[in-house]
């Protein structure tokens, strides 16, 4: 059954039950992925997925139910389940559905053609070969995947919202394994965009070089050092701690940034921006999960917390306007709050100058275990790290298996320099994080 047909059945079921405030959120994805191993295609997958979430306001409360089966019985079932769930709630939140008739920034899907299956296979094999060619240290175990996806989102509600968004992307990923005969080290590189413009050999070379650089790494010595976080390390911090910028977390007493709008929360060189239309975003979108228009804003401006991120409900509770940051983790998830592309704005010095400024310290290239070793409520973190020593202002020997510990909220205030180039590592999807390299004084390194 098509969504349009299902929608009519759901609306009829809702009206039959006397429900007059409701919304349907529908998302779909159609993807193809090819993985190669040892010069042959090892796995191929083709996926069609999607689902509908129905939510409705009953007795002032918002109930949700979702389904992947677009059938007559499920149309009735989701209405019944959502209204029962609404009646189970006893929170004191005021609930809202987005009003129709708003003006949105016009965004269109990328104007290139997605690669065919054969082109995906060719790209993956080509990238893999380029890794083997780049260095004799590259061994089997190296895996490469090329994928493409078309996705869509639709929101339809009883207040006149009827929005539709379609996006597409293609991506190449390679995880290169290298060895020096005694140990192995690996690293990955990801590039998304128009396949006719991607330099696959460069992607392979980048992963190969960074995997190889890790070989022979020593454990860093324990102590307190100036630390330079590489863009991808700092972006992963932002990914975890972005939760603290959610007004929902603040209103629930789970963010230390509660009540701090207008006050200094970071060094005055720090500006943190959220931009749904960032040039490298893979999913620029003009409306949020409640259908509110999205826009670019500085969350932190020159060290001052300018605004938290709001949706309709939290904005009403705070007597403010939504910032257009309503977000769903999946079609079946509740409406929460997330940034789109959140990044630390660039500074004015190059990474080389930043290293010079650090003098002697540690360059943290990547961080591990952020899901467990970082506490968004207290800001404390203690994280597995790897990177390089910095000696006399330059990166020297590789170090690994050490931890860097501190407090994120203190660290924001202790950023002493920011490099001039923002990088958006990995695959962001609708929520992406970026950063330049940053220098922080006085963090604890635990190693040998």
């Amino acid at each position: 059954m098509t969504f349009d047909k299902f929608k009519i059945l759901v609306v009829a079921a809702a009206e039959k039950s006397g429900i007059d405030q409701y919304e349907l959120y529908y998302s779909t994805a159609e993807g193809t992925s090819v993985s190669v191993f040892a010069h042959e295609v090892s796995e191929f997958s083709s996926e069609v997925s999607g689902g509908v979430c129905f939510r409705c306001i009953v007795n002032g409360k918002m109930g949700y139910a979702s389904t992947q089966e677009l059938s007559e019985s499920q149309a009735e079932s989701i209405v019944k389940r959502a209204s029962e769930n609404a009646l189970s709630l006893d929170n004191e939140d005021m609930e809202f559905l987005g009003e129709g008739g708003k003006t949105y920034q016009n965004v269109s899907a990328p104007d290139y053609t997605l690669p065919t299956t054969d082109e995906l296979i060719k790209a993956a094999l080509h990238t893999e070969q380029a890794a083997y060619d780049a260095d004799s240290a590259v061994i089997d175990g190296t895996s490469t995947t090329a994928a493409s996806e078309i996705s869509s989102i639709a929101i339809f509600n009883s207040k006149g919202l009827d929005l539709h968004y379609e996006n597409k992307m293609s991506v190449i990923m390679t995880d290169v394994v290298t060895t020096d005969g005694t140990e192995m080290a690996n690293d990955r590189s990801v590039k998304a965009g128009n396949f006719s413009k991607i330099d696959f050999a460069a992607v392979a070379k980048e992963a190969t070089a960074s995997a190889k650089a890790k070989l022979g790494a020593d454990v860093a010595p324990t102590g307190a050092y100036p630390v330079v976080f590489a863009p991808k390390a700092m972006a992963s911090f932002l990914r975890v701690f972005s939760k603290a910028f959610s007004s929902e977390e603040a209103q629930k007493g789970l963010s230390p940034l509660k009540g701090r709008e207008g006050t200094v929360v970071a060094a005055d060189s720090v500006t943190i921006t959220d931009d749904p239309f960032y040039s490298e975003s893979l999913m620029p979108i003009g409306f949020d999960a409640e259908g509110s228009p999205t826009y670019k804003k500085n969350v932190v401006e020159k060290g001052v917390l300018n605004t938290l991120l709001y949706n309709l409900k939290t904005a009403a509770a705070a007597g403010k306007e939504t910032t257009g940051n309503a977000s769903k983790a999946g079609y079946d998830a509740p409406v929460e709050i997330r940034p789109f592309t959140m990044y630390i704005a660039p500074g004015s010095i190059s990474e080389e100058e930043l290293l010079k400024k650090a003098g002697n310290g540690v360059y943290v290239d990547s961080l591990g275990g952020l899901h467990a070793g970082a506490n968004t409520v207290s800001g404390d973190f203690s994280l597995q790290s790897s990177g390089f020593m910095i000696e006399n202002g330059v990166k020297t020997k590789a170090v690994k298996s050490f931890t860097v510990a501190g407090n994120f909220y203190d660290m924001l205030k202790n950023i002493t320099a920011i490099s001039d180039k923002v990088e958006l590592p990995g695959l962001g999807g609708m929520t992406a994080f970026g950063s330049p390299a940053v220098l922080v004084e006085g963090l604890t390194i635990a190693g040998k």
Partner: protein
Amino acid sequence: MIERDVCERVLAVAVSTGADYAELFCENTVDHAVNMIAGKVDSVKDGYIAGASVRVYKGLRSVMASTIDTTEQGLISCAKKAAEALGQGKAEISICLTQRIFGDIHPIKIVPSTVKNSDKIEVLRRACNAAKEYDGAIKQVKGTLLDVDHGIMIATSEGLYTTDRQIRTRLSMESVAEIGGETQTGTASPGRRMGMEMFDGLISPEETGREASRQAVTMAGAGYAPAGTMPVVIGNGFGGVIFHEACGHSLEATSVAYGCSQFCGKLGQQIANPKVTAVDDGTIPGAWGSINIDDEGTPARKNVLIEKGVLKSYMIDKFNSRRMGMEPTGNARRQSYGYTPTSRMTNTYIAAGDDKNEDIIASVEYGLYAKAMGGGSVNPTTGEFNFAVREGYMIRGGKVCEAVRGACLVGKGSDVIMNIDMVGPDLDMGQGMCGSSSGSIPANVGQPMIRVSSITVGGR
């Protein structure tokens, strides 16, 4: 579930271009969760997941296609897509399915999807109230009661046609405590492969809430853990996450079959301290990570991975079993039909040893006692792992002293399992959700109290 004759027609299309193996997997899952915050029911998640996937193999090539359209026409077109992607050829095998019924060693007394919201809310309220009342320092309490009713059907070109129904229930509590401006969290999250009868005597909602609050209050009053390399005693239960991360992932065929593991080619060799015997057992009745059959239809079993330090077995799924030339071990798992299944852990633990807990603590002159662990992660290629200590104490002169917070443990799997040099008697399990290429799946980790003679503690 899909009729047998429909499955036969779908599989016939799947093998029509020369596949030497084909599988149809269908799923119907009811996914339900009630969330309570500050004593109020905040949200209810209520989802129905339904779909199917067709997989075909030819030699060392695997193709999967998935769909949400489970009509015969939808399944046939999904099978066609998989067959076409495999290449050009003609059918070399014929399909004839016979039904097989596996035993269910996890009887469910109260199926959660048939229980009213109000009864679930009552359980949650008991846990949240107990957590809040535990101590005046408790500032916030969050609780989730989730239940999953996961029905699967598997039909393969080898003739298998079978179903399984996996029901799980879990109570997750999180308390936030504030002492002198210092905010810390504590958690307790017991789960079982059971229905709501889990709360009739086995798991107390009140104790779960109080445990989360006790941990939060203890940590809010604690100073920072020191940084450096030292002996560490790790408590039982969820402490087993150390084996899960440091070693377990590197024993999965997902890594081993591709040469991406520190334990490749080490069967029969001493890879761990002789004190270490480690097991993956998918057959423990009612346990969080248990399955009757895996997601390829192979019956779950008890696999001894390491016996007295000697590597005995890997965890292997059907596809990787071809590359490795070894039989599947009942470990193929997938979150859902949209993920390609691969080898994963079930209930994985270090077996009880013969050291006494008091001797283990007494043996440490200066070190850390990690009473409760948080999550972790590993790079199976290099074996480098990390995990967070949720509740830690210093050990001085063989005695447990003050609580410390903010520690994490890092190291290399092959080193750390050599350094487990004392193993206590009190084996217990903890529940987790394990994330990997085939999605997020429920897995138990477990161990008795152990001592690691030397490991890097990240503190400050």
